[in-house]
C-alpha cells in the first residue's frame, strides 16, 4: 500500500485505488473496534488481532477436493460458484443453464472487464461501519457478482461456496459479493462458509444486496467454518418499494464468528424477514448483530433468532430497530430466545428499539431459559432415556428454525447436523 500512497501524490489512480486507500487510512485513523464500542461490547477480538494474518492470493489450496466441498456444502443442484480462499475456483464450479436476464459471474471478472459497474459498491464511503468492513474494502478482489434484470425469475437456488484451505499460513480471506435484483426479479441465494479442520484463518466477508421495486431475494448464510477459524460477515441490504428480502443465518462453526446484518428500508412497503440460529459449544463465540433502518413508510421487518448454548459457549444477540422520523405505518418485531444447556454457557441479548415517529407497531422481546425439568421427567417416565429426552427437547426448541428453511436438501442437512450435535433423540419428527 505504501507504493499506492507514493503514486497517489503524483497522479489520479482511479476511483478504486482511491477507495482502497481511503479505507486503509480509515482503519489507520480509527483503529479496530474494542469492547468500548457499543456494537462490539460482547465479542472479544483479542484472538483475531493477535494473529499476523496474510492476505490470501488466488490459486488452488493444496488439499481441497470436490469431495471435501460437497461434504461441507450440500449440493443444491443449481448454479454453484465455488471460491477457494476467497478466489473463484472454476474447476469446482458449475454454471448450469440460467434463464436469460441473469448474470452470474465473479467480482474479479467484473473488475477486469468493466470496473465502473462496481463503483456504487466498492466505491462507497469506506469504514462507514467498522474497521473490518473497511479491511474488506481494501483487500476484496473476488466474490460473486449476480445481476437479475427486470422480472427475471431464477427458480434454482444459486449457491455460493466459500471454502478455505490455508494449511500452515494464517490467511485473511476477503470475499466481496454483490447481488443486484432489478425490478420484479426473484432468486434464492445460498452462501456457505467452510474449511479444513485445524486451519487458522479469518474470513472477513461483505455481501451487498440491492433490491429494486418488487424484487424478491431469499438468502441463506450457512457458517460452518472449522473451530480454529474466525469469521466476520457483513450482510448489507438496501430495499426499494415493495421489495421482499428474507435471510436465514445458521451459525455452527468458528472460534469467534460474527454475523452482522444491516438493512435499509428506503422504499415504501418493503418487507424484510431475518432469522438465525446459533449453536456455540466448547469455547465458541457466536455474535449476531442486526440493524434494521426503517426510513420509508409502511415497511415491515421481522426478526427471530434462537440460540442453543452449550459448554462455555457464548452467544450474542445485539439487534437494533431504528424507526426514523416520518416512517409511519412501520410494523417491526424482534424476538430472541436462548436455551442454555450448561451452567458455564453465556448469552448476552440486547434487543433495541429506537422510534422517532408515532404511527408504528413495534414489539421486541428476549428470553433465556434452560431445559424444562418437568418435561424431561415426563419424557423419561415414558421410557425415553435421559440423553435422548434432552436431545428431543433441544430439537423441539430449534425445530421452528429448521422448518423455516425452504430448501429441502439444506433443511435435511441442518436437521442432521443438529441431531448429531444434540443426541439421538433429536431426530426430526416424521408425523
Amino acid at each position: 500500500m505504501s507504493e499506492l500512497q507514493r503514486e497517489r501524490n503524483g497522479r489520479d489512480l482511479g476511483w478504486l485505488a482511491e477507495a482502497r486507500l481511503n479505507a486503509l487510512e480509515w482503519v489507520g485513523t480509527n483503529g479496530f473496534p474494542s469492547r468500548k464500542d457499543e456494537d462490539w461490547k460482547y465479542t472479544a477480538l483479542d484472538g483475531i488481532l493477535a494473529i499476523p494474518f496474510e492476505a490470501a492470493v488466488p490459486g488452488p489450496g493444496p488439499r481441497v477436493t470436490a469431495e471435501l466441498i460437497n461434504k461441507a456444502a450440500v449440493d443444491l443442484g443449481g448454479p454453484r460458484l465455488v471460491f477457494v480462499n476467497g478466489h473463484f475456483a472454476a474447476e469446482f464450479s458449475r454454471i448450469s443453464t440460467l434463464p436469460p436476464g441473469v448474470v452470474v459471474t465473479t467480482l474479479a471478472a467484473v473488475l477486469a472487464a468493466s470496473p465502473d459497474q462496481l463503483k456504487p459498491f466498492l466505491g462507497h464511503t469506506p469504514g462507514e461501519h467498522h474497521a473490518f468492513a473497511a479491511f474488506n474494502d481494501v483487500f476484496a478482489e473476488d466474490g460473486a457478482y449476480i445481476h437479475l434484470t427486470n422480472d427475471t425469475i431464477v427458480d434454482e437456488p444459486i449457491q455460493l461456496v466459500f471454502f478455505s484451505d490455508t494449511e500452515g499460513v494464517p490467511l485473511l480471506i476477503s470475499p466481496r459479493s454483490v447481488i443486484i435484483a432489478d425490478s420484479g426479479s426473484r432468486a434464492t441465494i445460498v452462501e456457505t462458509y467452510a474449511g479444513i479442520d485445524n486451519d487458522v484463518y479469518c474470513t472477513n466477508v461483505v455481501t451487498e444486496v440491492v433490491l429494486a421495486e418488487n424484487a424478491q431475494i431469499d438468502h441463506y448464510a450457512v457458517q460452518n467454518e472449522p473451530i480454529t477459524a474466525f469469521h466476520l460477515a457483513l450482510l448489507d441490504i438496501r430495499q426499494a418499494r415493495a421489495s421482499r428480502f428474507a435471510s436465514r443465518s445458521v451459525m455452527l462453526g468458528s472460534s469467534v464468528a460474527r454475523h452482522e446484518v444491516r438493512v435499509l428500508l428506503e422504499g415504501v412497503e418493503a418487507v424484510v424477514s431475518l432469522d438465525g440460529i446459533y449453536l456455540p459449544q466448547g469455547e465458541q463465540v457466536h455474535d449476531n448483530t442486526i440493524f434494521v433502518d426503517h426510513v420509508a413508510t409502511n415497511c415491515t421487518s421481522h426478526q427471530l433468532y434462537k440460540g442453543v448454548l452449550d459448554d462455555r459457549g457464548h452467544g450474542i444477540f445485539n439487534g437494533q430497530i431504528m424507526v426514523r422520523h416520518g416512517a409511519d405505518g412501520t410494523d417491526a418485531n424482534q424476538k430472541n430466545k436462548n436455551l442454555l444447556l450448561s451452567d458455564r454457557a453465556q448469552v448476552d441479548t440486547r434487543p433495541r428499539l429506537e422510534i422517532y415517529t408515532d404511527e408504528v407497531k413495534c414489539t421486541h422481546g428476549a428470553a433465556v431459559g434452560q431445559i424444562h425439568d418437568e418435561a424431561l421427567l415426563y419424557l423419561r417416565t415414558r421410557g425415553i432415556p435421559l440423553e435422548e429426552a434432552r436431545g428431543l427437547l433441544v430439537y423441539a426448541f430449534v425445530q421452528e428454525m429448521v422448518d423455516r428453511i425452504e430448501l429441502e436438501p439444506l433443511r435435511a442437512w441442518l436437521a442432521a447436523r443438529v441431531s448429531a450435535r444434540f443426541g439421538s433423540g433429536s431426530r426430526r419428527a416424521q408425523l
Partner: protein
Amino acid sequence: MLKIEELHASIDNKEILRGVNLDLKAGEVHAIMGPNGSGKSTLASVLIGREGYEISGSATYEGQDLLALSPEERAAAGVFLAFQHPVEIPGVGNMYFMRTALNSLRRQRGEEELDAVDFLTLAQERMKLVEMDQTFMSRAVNEGFSGGEKKRNEILQMAILEPKLAILDETDSGLDIDALRVVANGVNALRSEGRTMLVITHHQRLLDYIVPDFVHVMAAGQIVRSGDKDLAHELEANGYEGLTPRSAKVGATV
C-alpha cells in the same frame, strides 16, 4: 407385583411420607384416598423416580428394587404414571412423542421397533378408547389441550404403552362429568388380569366409575385405613375427620 414397606420420603427436610406400607398384587385395582397434603401425590412421584426426595424404606416391584432404577428403566419395567398436571412440550408432536416412547420401551426390552405405519395403526385403534380424534396427534404434546384433553392424552399413552403397573394421579381433577366418564371408560377397558392399578383421588366420585378392589386412606404420610370399595362411601359420608395416623406425634406436626 409391588410391595411397599416402611417408605419414608422427605423434601427440603420436611417429611412427607412417614412409613407407607402397601401390597399390590397382579390384576388388582387399589385406590388411595386422602385429604390434600396427605402425601398421595408424593407417593406417586417417588414411585416413578422424581428427583429431589430423601428416601428410606423399600419398594419392590416384581422382585427388583424399584427405587434403584432411573425413571426410564422403571418405564421399561412396566411402571406408568398418568400425571395430575401433564406438562406441555411445544415443538414435539404428540404422535412422534408416543412412537418414540413406545420404541424406547421396546428397544430397552429387546423388542423390534414399530415403523410409522404400524404405529399409526396401533394409535388409531387405541384412540377410540378415549374418544380422541387424529387432530390431537398432529398437535404438540399437551400444548393448548384443555384439562380434559390432557387427561385423555394420559390414558391414551397408557393404552399405547401397556404398562403392568399404572398409577393414576388425580386423574379426575378438573374433569366435568362427561369427560370423567370418557376417561373412566378408557381406564376400565385397560383393566386386565396382568395389570395392576393404583388410583389416587381426592374424591369418591371417580370410584363410582373405576370400581376398586381395595381402598386405602392416607393421612399425614401413612396409610391409616384399608378396606374394600365400601370404605370410599363411608368416607364420602363421614369425611376424613377422625382418621389419624398410628403415631399421634407424627400427626401433630402436620
